[in-house]
């Protein structure tokens, strides 16, 4: 069981690198979606037994993170008919190097924290940190508003990975509340992006610097 | 104090001071090899001026006349604070040295105001210098008096210059000597003598006291002259008492000795005027600050 979970988490880590390396907007969105699907899988795998609650949660995760949210974003991309390239502030290769660095740091840092003895999978904590940091990298090194949303999703995915450790502790209501909030957040951000596009004829955040000091 | 003392203390300041001016003038004349005016010439001048009429500037107001009046009356009052000999002074109370200084200051204030009242730039200039120099002379006088205060443990002029003065000289001779020097400089400055001012000059640009009173005439000018003489008398009395702390018994002899000493002081002033030139006006403050430092040094010597 642990081996399977480990594999899934390695998948999550790989997606991080794909996200940092891709130059295409749609691809980045799909990678975020893929990560969501992997998370659903991880949730299922981590608990082995086909508990109805876990099943439902995994399905909801896949449906929201893997399908609904990417769909909203892809639609936004289509609607605003923007250029489909990611415009990085930091280039792709440096981003990948930074991503590798972040992953390495996560592995080191996670070791300094004590873990529960019957640890489900030792990779959960570092994978969570690495994904959070990747999300952070995407947020800060990419120009377009929509890539920032993708970065936010990645960051949130990273938090979710950590949540795998706490499935028993987190009530159903909270899990759904979190997912719902995420959905609404992306929805509201989508609306705002629409307005940004309408006002500035572009989704680049470079136009969003008139408020300063 | 006997009735005799009181009488002397009241009459001497009224009648004696002009004589000092006469002595100074005569000393200067003698030193210059001339015969000079009679010793009583200042009395004649005053009497003549009192009889004369006045001419007033159109610019002036009542303040102009208040100057000489207040100047003379405060000087008269102030002179009552200084002991005439060892018998003590007519008016004496703790802190009376302050009253002495401030009465003279009151007179000065009105003299300056009277000068400014004429609207003349020359008199303004004189007033400005008078204000500046006398204000710088004040700390020097205070330091000198503080030496006495510390030595005597008393705060009234009468007690400070009283019968214990010889002991003070024994205890704090150097300090008192410095105080005497400082007070002498102050006396010259406050009474507009050389090296601070030349009462006999005829160039308005270089005058201090005389230029302030250019517009006064008749009785007002007489009051100015009388006030100036009184001021010299008061400071002189202070100085000679301090410098010569001898006891002479009896009112008549005591007062007499004091007056003789005063005349000697006037002669000294005349000598100084004969051998020195007037200082450059810009140097005057340095001399006064120097006097203050002498006084301060005198105070510092008493530490410990």
């Amino acid at each position, binding site marked *: 069981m642990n081996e399977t979970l480990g594999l899934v988490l390695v998948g999550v880590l790989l997606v991080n690198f794909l996200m940092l390396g891709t130059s295409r907007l749609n691809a980045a969105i799909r990678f975020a979606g893929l990560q969501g699907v992997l998370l659903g899988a991880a949730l299922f795998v981590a608990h082995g037994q086909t508990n109805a609650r876990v099943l439902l949660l995994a399905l909801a995760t896949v449906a929201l993170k893997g399908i609904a949210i990417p769909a909203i974003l892809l639609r936004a991309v289509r609607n605003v008919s923007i250029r489909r390239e990611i415009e990085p502030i930091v280039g792709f290769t440096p981003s990948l190097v930074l991503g590798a660095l972040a992953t390495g740091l996560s592995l080191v*840092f996670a070791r300094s924290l004590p873990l529960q003895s019957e640890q489900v999978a030792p990779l959960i904590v570092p994978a969570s940190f690495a994904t959070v940091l990747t999300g952070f990298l995407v947020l800060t090194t990419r120009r377009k508003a929509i890539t920032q949303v993708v970065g936010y999703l990645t960051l949130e995915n990273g938090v979710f990975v950590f949540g795998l450790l706490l499935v028993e502790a987190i009530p159903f209501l909270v899990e759904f509340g979190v997912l719902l909030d995420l959905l609404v957040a992306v929805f509201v951000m989508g609306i705002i992006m629409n307005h940004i596009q309408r006002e500035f004829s572009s989704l680049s955040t470079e136009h969003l610097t008139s408020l300063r000091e | 104090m006997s009735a005799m003392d009181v009488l002397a203390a009241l009459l001497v300041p009224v009648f004696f001071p002009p004589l000092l001016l006469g002595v100074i003038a005569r000393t200067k004349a003698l030193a210059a090899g001339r015969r000079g005016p009679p010793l009583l010439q200042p009395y004649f001048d005053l009497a003549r001026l009192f009889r004369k009429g006045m001419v007033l500037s159109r610019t002036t107001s009542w303040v102009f006349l*208040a100057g000489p009046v207040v100047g003379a009356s405060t000087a008269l009052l102030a002179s009552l604070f200084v002991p005439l000999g060892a018998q003590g002074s007519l008016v004496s109370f703790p*802190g009376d040295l302050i009253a002495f200084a401030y009465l003279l*200051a009151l007179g000065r204030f009105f003299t300056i*105001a009277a000068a400014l009242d004429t609207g003349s*730039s020359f008199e*303004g*200039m004189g007033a400005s210098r008078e204000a500046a120099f006398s204000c710088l002379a004040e700390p020097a006088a205070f*330091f000198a008096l503080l030496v006495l205060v510390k030595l005597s443990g008393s705060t009234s002029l009468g007690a400070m210059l009283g019968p214990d003065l010889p002991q003070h000289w024994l205890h704090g001779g150097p300090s008192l000597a410095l105080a005497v020097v400082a007070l002498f400089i102050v006396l010259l400055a406050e009474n507009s003598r050389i090296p601070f001012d030349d009462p006999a000059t005829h160039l308005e640009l270089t005058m201090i006291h005389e230029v302030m009173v250019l*517009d006064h005439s008749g009785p007002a000018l007489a009051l100015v002259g009388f006030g100036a003489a009184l001021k010299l008398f008061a400071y002189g009395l202070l100085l000679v008492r301090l410098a010569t702390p001898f006891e002479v018994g009896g009112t008549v002899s005591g007062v007499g000795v004091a007056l003789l000493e005063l005349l000697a002081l006037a002669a000294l002033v005349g000598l100084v005027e004969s051998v020195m030139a007037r200082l450059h006006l810009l140097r005057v403050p340095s001399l006064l600050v120097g006097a203050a430092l002498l006084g301060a040094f005198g105070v510092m010597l008493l530490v410990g």
Partner: protein
Amino acid sequence: MTTLLALCGAAAMASSGPIAAAARRVGPRRADRLWVLLFVVGASLAAFAALLALASGGDELRAHAPFPVGEVALGLDALSALFLIAVAGLGAACACYGLAYYPAALHPDSAGRLRTAFGLASAGLAMVLLARHSLVFIAAWETMAVSSYFAVAAEDRDREVREAGFLYLVSTRVSSLCLIALFALHWAASGSLLLVPLGAGQIAPQIQSALFVLALLGFGLKAGLVPLHVWLPPAHSAAPTHVSALLSGVLIKSGIYGLVRITSLLPEPSPWWGEMVLALGVVSAVLGVAYALAQHDLKRLLAYHSVENIGIIAIGLGVALIARASAGLDTAALALAGALLHVVNHALFKGLLFLAAGAVIQRAHTRSLDALGGLGRSMPATALLFLLGAVAIVGLPPLNGFVSELLIYSSLLRMVASEDGASWISAALAAPALALTGGLALACFAKAFGTVFLGAPRHQSVSDGSDAPAAMRAPMVALALGCAFIGLAPFALAPALRNACEAVLGSALAPLAAPWRAISGVALASLALSAAGGAWLWLRLSRRPAPRTVTWDCGYAAPTQRMQYSAASFAQPLVRVFSSALLPREYGSAGVAPFPQRSAFHSEVVDAALDRIVLPSAHAVVRLAARLRVLQQGSVQQYLVYVWIAVIALLAVGGVGR
């Protein structure tokens, strides 16, 4: 009973402004009068209460208020009463004066605000005096400070007024924060918010010293001790003149009151406290008057004299503190009495001088000394009143300034005469400094009086006009009478001063060792002698009228009025002596060539503490702040980096993972 009465007075003063504003409909003139009426009623109540307290020793009110105040105390002892009389008296005088000086009819959009601010400031001041509780004190203090800011900034259309007002506001806030720190520390150390004397040994000596330093900073800022005086001259010259009078006459005295009150609560004063106050007092007195001498602006000149007089008061307080530390209670009482009397005196003569200056400014429309002149002719009453104020402030007999300065001098001399150890040296240095101050003040007021009222007008527009109206003259006359009364009959105040000293020193005292009779004798004698001389001269003149002619021109053919000695030239010799402290700036040069060209010369003295310390450091802070703004230029990516930096910094600060 007296406290309650004073409280009612304060309430009346505070509510006078809003009531007059509510009665706006009766018209501006009547609203003004209504306000003055209410204010004067309040002030009279307060003054009456204060007089009762001076006679009876006063009383204290205690009550229980809900949180945050808790157990609250208000009191009116002789010390408070002395200040309260000054507040009520000068407040009422200035309020009446405002009727003609700042009528609502001429200042429709600021007179209402000014009335409210004036009333609140006076009431706040009264409450400061009554408060025996930290929070009540600080609330009253801030009410006074903020409302007086609005009074200062009444003519806010003027940029200069706004800037001066802001400087005042900031200074007063710094002062308040010092006091807040003081009270917080006092509370923490003593466990009580009440301002009652602490028992010996109740708090550590270091804490007492810290409390003293905070009090000195906070109250010194308010009082305007050099170098904390930077706000004072601009604020005084910017404010409407009757506000300047109130500000200078009583408001800055709240700093003195506070210092006296707080030090009286501390049981074990260290000797250096007094030395420090004394040193600050000497510096303030000398520099204040030196700066005053160099001013061209009549109100700034008067303002710097407030610094000087605060310095003189501080000298008295310093001596009192030194003497208290060495248990020389008689000397302490004498010095304290001098300082307290000088507080009252300064309120009288500085109020008088400001009000007279206001009358001049209203007629001549300028504050520049170099443009004024010869006003004694058209404004004889104002001239006489100003002269009286000048004589009083210089400390000359026969007026009140002489009395208080004499007391302070006496205490210094007593300290020189009788104390051993180090303290007499400070006194021996302070006394000549005080004398120097007196001389400089004399020069300065001779200059001010001379250039404004004497000679001939230096400027065409100045000469016409009439004397001040009765509504402005009456308060001035009242103040002048006060000066004369204290100058001639100081013994009348002796019991009150002794009571006040007892309230401060906390023990019964022998009658003050001051030569009351002699002082009034000197005053009367100088007055009588001068009057006799004057009468004689007047008789002579009426028998033989003097012909009138031009001023003797020393042979110069065509003197003009503009060639009169100006204020700047009058002060020049002394300014030169003090140039290393005043740092005068000179522009242009006097012609010295053989054939002089047309030339211009102008010199000015700006406040060194403000111009060389406060403003440059303020600008440095602004520049630093401007540089920090680079950090926030609108990039959301950058902002997100800050969030992460915060995470890392907090992990480091907390030492997580170690």
